[in-house]
């Protein structure tokens, strides 16, 4: 039986909502829970309408206790459910850090493979929404540094749908980072989309002169920078990582071999950020191919600033283009 597809224009928030909806519909073991995910539909409305349609047994509010949101997700996964737990904001995921890193990430190992942790923890992350403290952080490195977790982040509505469905279907625990500043980004998508691999990067724009490696909220910034560069006769390739752990090195290396110049960017601090790992790998494995040092563009080593300053701190197209220029000096 052919499944009818429809093409609609949706925001990323809506695409995520549809992915949750379709996962609930297709798999009776999927559960959704977290703070305010019930009647309110979550503070970003990503779970809007799901409790009404699927009932309060499968879509439910929890007490305000992130460690136990994660800990009960583990227990439910042992029971054979596929929990999709929501952390309300990036910095509010930290109380769950012990459960996620010491238990969820290690339970498969601890049980000799008998208890896979087929669960997803959704976390809105990143800044640029004018918020108060603790609402704009980029915690991806904490999670990507922990073996046993997979970490993915979409940059657009189509990927948001495909990646979230793939994350829910995956047998391992997936930290699903949602770039909250892009919840309102619109795109035409055809649904239901075919399942995405959760470990594949994507070339968001092809180019020949330098590669900008970005993910999540920085992909649209990189695409804007590429647009400007094109008007100046420079063809930038934009690579959207999508998966932060594991990293799709094949796609990264192929692009770096082609352009020979690489800039990595993220909202997270440059210090020990994902860019460091990518730069080190490229330096080591493509030492003879690259013609310039890998540039990194990210946040300084400060706490996330008060929102009045955030635009000064966030990497923007100008900073990316300056970094591209530096790679082109070689």
């Amino acid at each position: 039986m052919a499944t009818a597809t429809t093409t609609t224009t949706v925001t990323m928030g809506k695409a995520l909502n549809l992915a949750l909806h379709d996962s609930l519909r297709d798999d009776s073991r999927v559960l959704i829970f977290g703070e305010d995910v019930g009647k309110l539909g979550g503070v970003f409305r990503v779970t809007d309408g799901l409790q009404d349609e699927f009932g309060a047994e499968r879509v439910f509010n929890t007490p305000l206790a992130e460690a136990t949101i994660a800990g009960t997700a583990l227990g439910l996964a042992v029971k054979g459910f596929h929990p999709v737990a929501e952390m309300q904001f990036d910095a509010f995921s930290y109380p769950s850090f012990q459960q996620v890193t010491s238990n969820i990430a290690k339970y498969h190992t601890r049980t000799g493979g008998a208890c896979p942790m087929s669960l997803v923890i959704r976390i809105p992350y990143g800044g640029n929404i004018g918020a108060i403290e603790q609402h704009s952080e980029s915690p991806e490195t904490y999670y990507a540094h922990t073996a046993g977790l997979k970490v993915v982040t979409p940059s657009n509505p189509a990927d948001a749908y495909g990646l979230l469905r793939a994350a829910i279907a995956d047998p391992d625990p997936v930290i699903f980072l949602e770039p909250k500043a892009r919840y309102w980004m619109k795109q035409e998508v055809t649904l239901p989309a075919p399942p995405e691999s959760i470990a594949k990067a994507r070339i968001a724009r092809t180019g020949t002169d330098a590669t900008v490696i970005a993910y999540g909220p920085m992909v649209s910034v990189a695409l804007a920078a590429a647009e400007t560069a094109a008007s100046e006769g420079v063809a930038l390739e934009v690579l959207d990582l999508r998966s932060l752990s594991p990293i799709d090195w094949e796609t990264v290396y192929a692009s770096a071999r082609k352009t020979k110049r690489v800039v990595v960017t993220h909202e997270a601090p440059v210090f020990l950020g994902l860019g460091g790992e990518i730069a080190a790998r490229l330096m080591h494995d493509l030492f003879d191919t690259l013609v310039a040092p890998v540039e990194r563009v990210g946040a300084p080593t400060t706490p996330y600033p008060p929102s009045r300053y955030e635009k000064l701190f966030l990497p923007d197209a100008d900073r990316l283009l300056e970094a591209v220029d530096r790679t082109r000096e070689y």
Partner: protein
Amino acid sequence: MADVTSAPPARRDTPALENPIAALLTPEGTLTAEGERVAGVSDATLRDLYRLMVITRRLDQEGLNLQRQGELGLWGPTLGHEAAQVGGALAMRETDWIFPYYRDFGMAIVRGIDPGQILTVFKGLRHGAWDPHQYRFGPFVIPVGTQVPHAVGFAMGCKLDHEQTAVLTCFGEGATSTGDWHEAMNFAGVFKAPVVFLCQNNQWAISVPMSEQVAGRIVDRAAGYGLPGVRVDGADALAIYAVTQMAADHARRGDGPYLIEAFSYRLGPHTTSDDPTRYRTEADVMPWRAHDPIARAADQLRKRGAWDDAFERACQSEADERAARMRQTLIAATPDHPSTVFDLVYANPPQTLIAERDAFVAELAPETPQEGR
């Protein structure tokens, strides 16, 4: 015109918790005569409790010996916990689940897990030694109190699946200071999860005594989470068995969670790495040595006329025989191939990790011709 002077709606207080189980215990936490009658624990069950406690103590002693002989990196003795562990585990049905803490060696024995295999964890061969689904017994969890939310989540799942399953989870009094414990108690209360919380209050968290750990009584905390609780004499396996069974029935009936505080004493060190002489004296410990779970069960059997020396001898010889087997299993246990560490990280491992494993194995190959596999 609106009547602005009217009072706000009356507060809806939660009705007082019914706790018929507590009424069956004396203030010291043993069964009253009525409690014994209601619980109806048979002589055969009491003999099972006795036998399994003797075995637990003997195997625990063997674990300590093995550590002292260099066969184990670490051992956390269960001495003084036999009643809570054997009584609690035996009270649960085979279909029920247990989420233990790291000291629940006696519970694992009751569940039929090969103790020689359990010890491989403390020999440093692996992080977990059994399939939780096979024994309905979760892995030993080291970060204190973090297994409690797992039990609650699992119990929430049992309720969603409309199963008649109860879940038991254990922890020490130190765990009741952790955020995860309080959060999990509250979740259990809110979701009416079919879970029994069994606190093995041994009065010591490594060197920190209960007086520096717990304000108030642990059992009283249950009320704050909307669930009933009871404090039981931690040396009385019969009482713990009876109360756990009733609490599990309460949970299975859909009446929600229940907290049991088994009040006992850690007679040994926290682990073999600990030195209790730095923080307590023999005079502190002495009174609790008489508070012995095994002697208590023997007394109870004698009072029932269900005791005989042949039974005791049979228990001891079974325990000795199992200790010898455990020792053999442990000593014969060899490491898995080191690549297992890579293979167990994910159910669906990424190519990057497979490549790391292959490089690691290639590097090891010349030096590990026979070892393990």
